[in-house]
Protein backbone atom coordinates (compact mmCIF):
# COMPACT_ATOMS: atom_id res chain seq x y z
CA UNK A 1 0.00 0.00 0.00
CA UNK A 2 2.65 2.56 1.04
CA UNK A 3 4.67 1.95 -2.17
CA UNK A 4 1.56 2.47 -4.31
CA UNK A 5 0.77 5.60 -2.33
CA UNK A 6 4.22 7.06 -3.02
CA UNK A 7 3.82 6.32 -6.74
CA UNK A 8 0.44 8.05 -6.86
CA UNK A 9 1.68 11.08 -4.90
CA UNK A 10 4.75 11.34 -7.16
CA UNK A 11 2.51 11.18 -10.23
CA UNK A 12 0.31 13.95 -8.84
CA UNK A 13 3.36 16.13 -8.14
CA UNK A 14 4.70 15.60 -11.65
CA UNK A 15 1.30 16.57 -13.04
CA UNK A 16 1.10 19.64 -10.83
CA UNK A 17 4.61 20.79 -11.88
CA UNK A 18 3.72 20.35 -15.55
CA UNK A 19 0.58 22.44 -15.09
CA UNK A 20 2.60 25.25 -13.56
CA UNK A 21 5.08 25.03 -16.46
CA UNK A 22 2.34 25.00 -19.08
CA UNK A 23 0.78 28.01 -17.35
CA UNK A 24 4.10 29.84 -17.62
CA UNK A 25 4.57 28.96 -21.31
CA UNK A 26 1.04 30.08 -21.94
CA UNK A 27 1.72 33.43 -20.30
CA UNK A 28 4.94 33.92 -22.26
CA UNK A 29 3.18 33.07 -25.48
CA UNK A 30 0.43 35.60 -24.74
CA UNK A 31 3.06 38.24 -23.91
CA UNK A 32 4.79 37.48 -27.21
CA UNK A 33 1.40 37.58 -28.93
CA UNK A 34 2.26 40.97 -30.40
CA UNK A 35 4.82 39.37 -32.73
CA UNK A 36 2.84 36.20 -33.41
CA UNK A 37 -0.06 36.06 -35.80
CA UNK A 38 -3.29 36.37 -33.83
CA UNK A 39 -4.90 33.19 -35.25
CA UNK A 40 -1.76 31.17 -34.55
CA UNK A 41 -1.76 32.45 -30.96
CA UNK A 42 -5.41 31.51 -30.54
CA UNK A 43 -4.79 28.06 -31.93
CA UNK A 44 -1.80 27.59 -29.62
CA UNK A 45 -3.83 28.89 -26.69
CA UNK A 46 -6.62 26.39 -27.43
CA UNK A 47 -4.08 23.56 -27.60
CA UNK A 48 -2.65 24.62 -24.26
CA UNK A 49 -6.16 24.71 -22.78
CA UNK A 50 -6.87 21.16 -24.00
CA UNK A 51 -3.60 19.89 -22.56
CA UNK A 52 -4.40 21.71 -19.33
CA UNK A 53 -7.83 20.12 -19.12
CA UNK A 54 -6.24 16.71 -19.61
CA UNK A 55 -3.70 17.50 -16.91
CA UNK A 56 -6.38 18.59 -14.46
CA UNK A 57 -8.37 15.45 -15.29
CA UNK A 58 -5.32 13.28 -14.60
CA UNK A 59 -4.64 15.02 -11.31
CA UNK A 60 -8.25 14.57 -10.24
CA UNK A 61 -8.10 10.92 -11.25
CA UNK A 62 -4.87 10.50 -9.26
CA UNK A 63 -6.42 12.20 -6.24
CA UNK A 64 -9.51 10.00 -6.51
CA UNK A 65 -7.30 6.88 -6.73
CA UNK A 66 -5.31 8.04 -3.73
CA UNK A 67 -8.46 8.78 -1.72
CA UNK A 68 -9.82 5.35 -2.68
CA UNK A 69 -6.59 3.64 -1.56
CA UNK A 70 -6.42 5.58 1.69
CA UNK A 71 -10.01 4.60 2.40
CA UNK A 72 -9.36 0.97 1.56
CA UNK A 73 -6.25 0.96 3.72
CA UNK A 74 -8.17 2.50 6.62
CA UNK A 75 -10.95 -0.07 6.19
CA UNK A 76 -8.55 -3.03 6.10
CA UNK A 77 -6.79 -1.59 9.16
CA UNK A 78 -10.16 -1.39 10.88
CA UNK A 79 -11.02 -4.95 9.83
CA UNK A 80 -7.67 -6.23 11.10
CA UNK A 81 -8.19 -4.37 14.34
CA UNK A 82 -11.67 -5.85 14.67
CA UNK A 83 -10.34 -9.34 13.90
CA UNK A 84 -7.59 -8.87 16.51
CA UNK A 85 -10.14 -7.76 19.07
CA UNK A 86 -12.38 -10.72 18.19
CA UNK A 87 -9.44 -13.14 18.50
CA UNK A 88 -8.47 -11.61 21.83
CA UNK A 89 -12.06 -11.97 23.05
CA UNK A 90 -12.26 -15.64 21.94
CA UNK A 91 -8.85 -16.28 23.49
CA UNK A 92 -9.94 -14.75 26.79
CA UNK A 93 -13.16 -16.77 26.78
CA UNK A 94 -11.27 -19.98 26.03
CA UNK A 95 -8.92 -19.21 28.89
CA UNK A 96 -11.93 -18.94 31.21
CA UNK A 97 -13.36 -22.15 29.70
CA UNK A 98 -10.02 -23.87 30.37
CA UNK A 99 -10.08 -22.68 34.00
CA UNK A 100 -13.67 -23.88 34.43
CA UNK A 101 -12.87 -27.25 32.89
CA UNK A 102 -9.79 -27.74 35.06
CA UNK A 103 -11.68 -26.66 38.18
CA UNK A 104 -14.30 -29.34 37.54
CA UNK A 105 -11.61 -31.99 37.92
CA UNK A 106 -10.65 -33.37 41.32
CA UNK A 107 -7.15 -32.57 42.66
CA UNK A 108 -4.31 -34.09 40.64
CA UNK A 109 -3.00 -35.74 43.75
CA UNK A 110 -4.91 -37.69 46.37
CA UNK A 111 -3.81 -39.82 49.27
CA UNK A 112 -5.82 -41.70 51.80
CA UNK A 113 -4.90 -44.66 53.97
CA UNK A 114 -5.62 -47.30 51.36
CA UNK A 115 -5.09 -45.47 48.12
CA UNK A 116 -2.85 -43.00 46.36
CA UNK A 117 -3.74 -41.27 43.09
CA UNK A 118 -1.89 -39.02 40.69
CA UNK A 119 -3.43 -37.70 37.49
CA UNK A 120 -2.70 -35.33 34.65
CA UNK A 121 -4.88 -33.88 31.88
CA UNK A 122 -3.30 -31.88 29.09
CA UNK A 123 -5.71 -30.81 26.33
CA UNK A 124 -4.32 -30.44 22.78
CA UNK A 125 -6.11 -27.08 22.54
CA UNK A 126 -7.40 -24.69 25.22
CA UNK A 127 -10.20 -27.04 26.18
CA UNK A 128 -10.63 -30.71 25.42
CA UNK A 129 -12.84 -33.74 25.51
CA UNK A 130 -10.90 -35.81 28.04
CA UNK A 131 -11.96 -36.41 31.61
CA UNK A 132 -10.82 -38.13 34.75
CA UNK A 133 -12.62 -38.16 38.07
CA UNK A 134 -12.55 -39.98 41.39
CA UNK A 135 -14.04 -39.74 44.84
CA UNK A 136 -14.59 -41.96 47.86
CA UNK A 137 -18.09 -42.87 49.03
CA UNK A 138 -19.10 -45.54 51.56
CA UNK A 139 -15.63 -47.08 51.69
CA UNK A 140 -15.49 -47.34 47.90
CA UNK A 141 -13.34 -45.44 45.44
CA UNK A 142 -15.37 -44.47 42.37
CA UNK A 143 -13.21 -43.47 39.46
CA UNK A 144 -13.60 -42.92 35.74
CA UNK A 145 -11.71 -41.84 32.65
CA UNK A 146 -13.28 -40.75 29.38
CA UNK A 147 -12.55 -39.39 25.92
CA UNK A 148 -15.03 -37.67 23.57
CA UNK A 149 -14.61 -38.12 19.80
CA UNK A 150 -12.90 -35.06 18.33
CA UNK A 151 -11.35 -32.27 20.37
CA UNK A 152 -11.74 -28.61 21.24
CA UNK A 153 -14.92 -26.82 22.27
CA UNK A 154 -17.58 -29.27 20.90
CA UNK A 155 -16.06 -32.25 22.69
CA UNK A 156 -15.49 -30.18 25.86
CA UNK A 157 -19.19 -29.33 25.96
CA UNK A 158 -20.23 -32.96 25.67
CA UNK A 159 -17.67 -34.00 28.26
CA UNK A 160 -19.02 -31.47 30.77
CA UNK A 161 -22.49 -32.96 30.35
CA UNK A 162 -21.13 -36.51 30.75
CA UNK A 163 -19.15 -35.49 33.83
CA UNK A 164 -22.21 -33.99 35.54
CA UNK A 165 -24.30 -37.07 34.81
CA UNK A 166 -21.53 -39.33 36.13
CA UNK A 167 -21.29 -37.31 39.35
CA UNK A 168 -25.05 -37.39 39.92
CA UNK A 169 -25.71 -41.00 38.98
CA UNK A 170 -22.73 -42.50 40.81
CA UNK A 171 -23.94 -40.90 44.04
CA UNK A 172 -26.79 -43.37 44.24
CA UNK A 173 -25.78 -46.33 42.05
CA UNK A 174 -22.81 -48.56 42.91
CA UNK A 175 -22.73 -50.68 39.76
CA UNK A 176 -20.42 -49.25 37.05
CA UNK A 177 -22.44 -50.96 34.29
CA UNK A 178 -25.65 -49.40 35.55
CA UNK A 179 -24.03 -45.98 35.81
CA UNK A 180 -22.85 -46.35 32.19
CA UNK A 181 -26.35 -47.34 31.11
CA UNK A 182 -28.01 -44.27 32.65
CA UNK A 183 -25.28 -42.03 31.22
CA UNK A 184 -25.67 -43.60 27.79
CA UNK A 185 -29.43 -43.15 27.69
CA UNK A 186 -29.05 -39.48 28.58
CA UNK A 187 -26.21 -38.87 26.14
CA UNK A 188 -28.07 -40.54 23.25
CA UNK A 189 -30.93 -38.08 23.63
CA UNK A 190 -30.85 -35.52 20.82
CA UNK A 191 -27.35 -36.54 19.79
CA UNK A 192 -27.85 -35.73 16.12
CA UNK A 193 -24.16 -35.25 15.42
CA UNK A 194 -23.48 -38.81 16.56
CA UNK A 195 -20.75 -37.68 18.92
CA UNK A 196 -19.72 -40.44 21.26
CA UNK A 197 -17.36 -40.93 24.14
CA UNK A 198 -15.36 -43.84 25.44
CA UNK A 199 -15.69 -44.22 29.19
CA UNK A 200 -14.28 -46.54 31.84
CA UNK A 201 -15.79 -46.69 35.32
CA UNK A 202 -14.29 -48.55 38.26
CA UNK A 203 -15.53 -49.03 41.79
CA UNK A 204 -12.84 -50.24 44.19
CA UNK A 205 -13.86 -51.57 47.57
CA UNK A 206 -11.09 -50.14 49.71
CA UNK A 207 -11.60 -52.78 52.39
CA UNK A 208 -11.65 -55.96 50.31
CA UNK A 209 -9.76 -54.83 47.23
CA UNK A 210 -12.61 -55.97 45.01
CA UNK A 211 -12.68 -53.97 41.81
CA UNK A 212 -15.93 -53.81 39.84
CA UNK A 213 -15.62 -52.19 36.46
CA UNK A 214 -17.33 -51.64 33.12
CA UNK A 215 -15.77 -50.33 29.97
CA UNK A 216 -17.62 -48.39 27.26
CA UNK A 217 -15.08 -48.72 24.44
CA UNK A 218 -12.18 -47.11 26.30
CA UNK A 219 -8.51 -48.13 26.14
CA UNK A 220 -7.71 -51.07 28.40
CA UNK A 221 -6.01 -49.89 31.60
CA UNK A 222 -2.66 -51.34 32.62
CA UNK A 223 -2.22 -53.26 35.82
CA UNK A 224 1.06 -53.51 37.73
CA UNK A 225 0.86 -56.40 40.12
CA UNK A 226 4.03 -58.48 40.11
CA UNK A 227 4.08 -58.07 36.34
CA UNK A 228 2.76 -55.46 33.94
CA UNK A 229 -0.40 -56.54 32.13
CA UNK A 230 -3.54 -55.03 30.65
CA UNK A 231 -6.88 -55.34 32.38
CA UNK A 232 -8.94 -57.70 30.23
CA UNK A 233 -11.96 -55.49 29.71
CA UNK A 234 -14.90 -56.53 27.55
CA UNK A 235 -15.41 -54.27 24.56
CA UNK A 236 -18.73 -52.50 24.96
CA UNK A 237 -19.81 -49.73 22.61
CA UNK A 238 -18.92 -46.16 23.61
CA UNK A 239 -21.57 -43.89 25.19
CA UNK A 240 -23.84 -41.94 22.87
CA UNK A 241 -23.97 -44.56 20.09
CA UNK A 242 -27.18 -46.55 20.64
CA UNK A 243 -29.58 -45.95 23.54
CA UNK A 244 -30.30 -49.68 23.87
CA UNK A 245 -26.66 -50.67 24.52
CA UNK A 246 -26.17 -52.90 27.56
CA UNK A 247 -22.80 -52.82 29.29
CA UNK A 248 -21.10 -55.88 30.70
CA UNK A 249 -19.71 -55.56 34.18
CA UNK A 250 -16.58 -57.37 35.35
CA UNK A 251 -14.98 -57.99 38.70
CA UNK A 252 -11.49 -58.80 39.93
CA UNK A 253 -9.65 -58.50 43.23
CA UNK A 254 -6.63 -56.27 43.53
CA UNK A 255 -3.86 -57.58 45.72
CA UNK A 256 -2.03 -55.24 48.04
CA UNK A 257 0.23 -52.81 46.25
CA UNK A 258 -1.48 -53.19 42.87
CA UNK A 259 -1.25 -50.16 40.61
CA UNK A 260 -3.81 -49.29 37.92
CA UNK A 261 -2.74 -47.09 35.03
CA UNK A 262 -5.57 -45.43 33.11
CA UNK A 263 -4.98 -43.29 30.03
CA UNK A 264 -6.62 -41.86 26.92
CA UNK A 265 -5.57 -42.49 23.31
CA UNK A 266 -3.57 -39.25 23.38
CA UNK A 267 -0.90 -41.49 24.94
CA UNK A 268 -1.00 -44.56 22.71
CA UNK A 269 -1.80 -42.71 19.48
CA UNK A 270 0.82 -39.96 19.88
CA UNK A 271 2.87 -39.91 16.67
CA UNK A 272 6.51 -39.24 15.96
CA UNK A 273 7.94 -37.63 12.80
CA UNK A 274 7.80 -41.02 11.02
CA UNK A 275 4.05 -41.14 11.72
CA UNK A 276 4.61 -44.13 14.02
CA UNK A 277 2.36 -44.40 17.06
CA UNK A 278 3.59 -44.62 20.64
CA UNK A 279 1.42 -47.72 21.10
CA UNK A 280 0.64 -49.92 24.08
CA UNK A 281 3.99 -51.75 23.69
CA UNK A 282 5.93 -48.62 24.64
CA UNK A 283 3.57 -47.90 27.53
CA UNK A 284 4.32 -51.37 28.86
CA UNK A 285 8.09 -50.82 28.44
CA UNK A 286 7.98 -47.56 30.40
CA UNK A 287 5.97 -49.18 33.20
CA UNK A 288 8.33 -52.17 33.35
CA UNK A 289 11.34 -49.86 33.53
CA UNK A 290 9.80 -48.00 36.46
CA UNK A 291 8.99 -51.29 38.12
CA UNK A 292 12.59 -52.50 37.70
CA UNK A 293 13.80 -49.21 39.18
CA UNK A 294 11.53 -50.01 42.13
CA UNK A 295 9.97 -46.57 41.97
CA UNK A 296 6.50 -46.73 40.62
CA UNK A 297 4.60 -44.32 42.79
CA UNK A 298 1.64 -42.79 40.90
CA UNK A 299 3.47 -39.49 40.42
CA UNK A 300 6.62 -41.20 39.13
CA UNK A 301 4.61 -43.23 36.62
CA UNK A 302 2.69 -40.19 35.33
CA UNK A 303 5.95 -38.25 34.96
CA UNK A 304 7.74 -41.19 33.28
CA UNK A 305 4.91 -41.77 30.79
CA UNK A 306 4.59 -38.06 30.03
CA UNK A 307 8.33 -37.71 29.44
CA UNK A 308 8.46 -40.87 27.34
CA UNK A 309 5.62 -39.77 25.05
CA UNK A 310 7.08 -36.26 24.68
CA UNK A 311 10.49 -37.73 23.92
CA UNK A 312 8.91 -40.04 21.35
CA UNK A 313 6.82 -37.35 19.62
CA UNK A 314 9.84 -34.99 19.54
CA UNK A 315 8.92 -31.79 17.73
CA UNK A 316 5.56 -33.17 16.52
CA UNK A 317 2.71 -31.11 17.96
CA UNK A 318 0.48 -32.82 20.52
CA UNK A 319 -2.44 -33.83 18.31
CA UNK A 320 -4.85 -35.12 20.93
CA UNK A 321 -5.81 -34.52 24.55
CA UNK A 322 -3.59 -36.55 26.87
CA UNK A 323 -4.88 -37.84 30.19
CA UNK A 324 -3.22 -40.16 32.69
CA UNK A 325 -4.53 -41.38 36.02
CA UNK A 326 -2.55 -43.78 38.18
CA UNK A 327 -4.12 -45.42 41.23
CA UNK A 328 -2.08 -47.36 43.74
CA UNK A 329 -4.05 -49.64 46.03
CA UNK A 330 -2.09 -50.23 49.21
CA UNK A 331 -4.40 -51.18 52.04
CA UNK A 332 -3.12 -50.24 55.44
CA UNK A 333 -1.72 -53.25 57.30
CA UNK A 334 -3.36 -54.18 60.59
Amino acid at each position, binding site marked *: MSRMGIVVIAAIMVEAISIVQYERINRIMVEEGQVVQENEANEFHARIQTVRRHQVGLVLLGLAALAFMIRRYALSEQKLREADEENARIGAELKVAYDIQQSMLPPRQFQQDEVEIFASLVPAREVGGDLFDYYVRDGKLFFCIGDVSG*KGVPSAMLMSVAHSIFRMVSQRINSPAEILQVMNEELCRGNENNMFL*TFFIGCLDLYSGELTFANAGHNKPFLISGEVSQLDTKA*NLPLGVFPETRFQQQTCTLSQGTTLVLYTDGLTEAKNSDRKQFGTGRVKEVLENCQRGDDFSPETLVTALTEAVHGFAGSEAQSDDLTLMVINYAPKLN
Partner: protein
Amino acid sequence: MITKIKELDGKYVASLEGEMDTAAAVEAEEILKPLYNAGGKDVIIDCSSLEYISSSGMRILLSILKGAKAAGSKVVLRGVNEDIKSIFALTGFIDIFEFE
Protein backbone atom coordinates in the same frame (compact mmCIF):
# COMPACT_ATOMS: atom_id res chain seq x y z
CA MET B 1 -5.88 -38.00 3.24
CA ILE B 2 -7.83 -38.60 0.04
CA THR B 3 -11.57 -39.23 0.14
CA LYS B 4 -13.63 -40.18 -2.93
CA ILE B 5 -17.19 -41.30 -3.54
CA LYS B 6 -18.57 -42.97 -6.66
CA GLU B 7 -21.74 -44.81 -7.55
CA LEU B 8 -21.29 -48.34 -8.87
CA ASP B 9 -24.02 -50.88 -9.68
CA GLY B 10 -26.58 -49.04 -7.54
CA LYS B 11 -24.25 -48.82 -4.55
CA TYR B 12 -22.13 -46.05 -3.18
CA VAL B 13 -18.45 -46.81 -2.94
CA ALA B 14 -16.37 -44.49 -0.79
CA SER B 15 -12.63 -44.86 -0.64
CA LEU B 16 -10.54 -43.54 2.23
CA GLU B 17 -6.79 -43.21 1.73
CA GLY B 18 -4.15 -42.17 4.25
CA GLU B 19 -4.57 -40.98 7.82
CA MET B 20 -8.02 -39.94 8.98
CA ASP B 21 -6.97 -37.89 12.00
CA THR B 22 -9.20 -35.24 13.57
CA ALA B 23 -8.24 -32.52 11.07
CA ALA B 24 -8.58 -34.81 8.05
CA ALA B 25 -11.95 -36.04 9.33
CA VAL B 26 -13.37 -32.51 9.11
CA GLU B 27 -12.51 -32.34 5.38
CA ALA B 28 -13.54 -35.94 4.73
CA GLU B 29 -16.94 -35.31 6.31
CA GLU B 30 -17.73 -32.64 3.70
CA ILE B 31 -17.22 -35.25 0.97
CA LEU B 32 -18.89 -38.13 2.80
CA LYS B 33 -21.95 -36.20 4.04
CA PRO B 34 -24.18 -37.29 1.11
CA LEU B 35 -23.79 -40.84 2.45
CA TYR B 36 -25.52 -39.89 5.72
CA ASN B 37 -28.67 -40.07 3.69
CA ALA B 38 -27.86 -42.63 1.01
CA GLY B 39 -31.55 -43.09 0.13
CA GLY B 40 -31.67 -46.82 0.75
CA LYS B 41 -28.55 -47.61 -1.27
CA ASP B 42 -25.90 -49.87 0.23
CA VAL B 43 -22.60 -48.22 1.05
CA ILE B 44 -19.21 -49.86 0.64
CA ILE B 45 -16.32 -48.10 2.36
CA ASP B 46 -13.00 -49.13 0.92
CA CYS B 47 -10.42 -48.89 3.72
CA SER B 48 -7.63 -50.83 2.00
CA SER B 49 -5.43 -47.70 1.85
CA LEU B 50 -6.57 -46.29 5.18
CA GLU B 51 -3.63 -46.15 7.59
CA TYR B 52 -5.19 -44.59 10.67
CA ILE B 53 -8.60 -43.58 11.93
CA SER B 54 -9.27 -41.22 14.84
CA SER B 55 -12.43 -41.18 16.92
CA SER B 56 -13.59 -38.25 14.75
CA GLY B 57 -13.30 -40.57 11.76
CA MET B 58 -15.20 -43.30 13.58
CA ARG B 59 -17.96 -40.77 14.24
CA ILE B 60 -18.34 -40.23 10.48
CA LEU B 61 -18.56 -43.98 9.83
CA LEU B 62 -21.12 -44.24 12.62
CA SER B 63 -23.20 -41.46 11.06
CA ILE B 64 -23.15 -43.28 7.71
CA LEU B 65 -24.15 -46.53 9.44
CA LYS B 66 -27.03 -44.93 11.33
CA GLY B 67 -28.36 -43.28 8.16
CA ALA B 68 -28.17 -46.56 6.25
CA LYS B 69 -29.83 -48.54 9.05
CA ALA B 70 -32.70 -46.07 9.18
CA ALA B 71 -33.21 -46.52 5.42
CA GLY B 72 -32.88 -50.31 5.60
CA SER B 73 -29.63 -50.52 3.65
CA LYS B 74 -26.25 -51.78 4.80
CA VAL B 75 -22.71 -50.54 5.20
CA VAL B 76 -19.72 -52.75 4.46
CA LEU B 77 -16.14 -51.90 5.38
CA ARG B 78 -13.73 -53.38 2.87
CA GLY B 79 -10.04 -54.17 3.31
CA VAL B 80 -9.63 -52.88 6.88
CA ASN B 81 -6.08 -53.55 8.09
CA GLU B 82 -5.29 -55.22 11.41
CA ASP B 83 -4.28 -52.02 13.24
CA ILE B 84 -7.55 -50.33 12.40
CA LYS B 85 -9.50 -53.49 13.14
CA SER B 86 -8.01 -53.48 16.64
CA ILE B 87 -9.39 -49.95 17.17
CA PHE B 88 -12.81 -51.24 16.08
CA ALA B 89 -12.43 -54.15 18.50
CA LEU B 90 -11.45 -51.87 21.37
CA THR B 91 -14.47 -49.62 20.89
CA GLY B 92 -16.95 -52.42 20.29
CA PHE B 93 -17.61 -50.97 16.81
CA ILE B 94 -16.48 -54.31 15.41
CA ASP B 95 -19.90 -55.74 16.33
CA ILE B 96 -22.00 -53.10 14.59
CA PHE B 97 -20.17 -52.92 11.26
CA GLU B 98 -19.97 -55.53 8.55
CA PHE B 99 -16.46 -56.32 7.27
CA GLU B 100 -15.27 -58.00 4.07
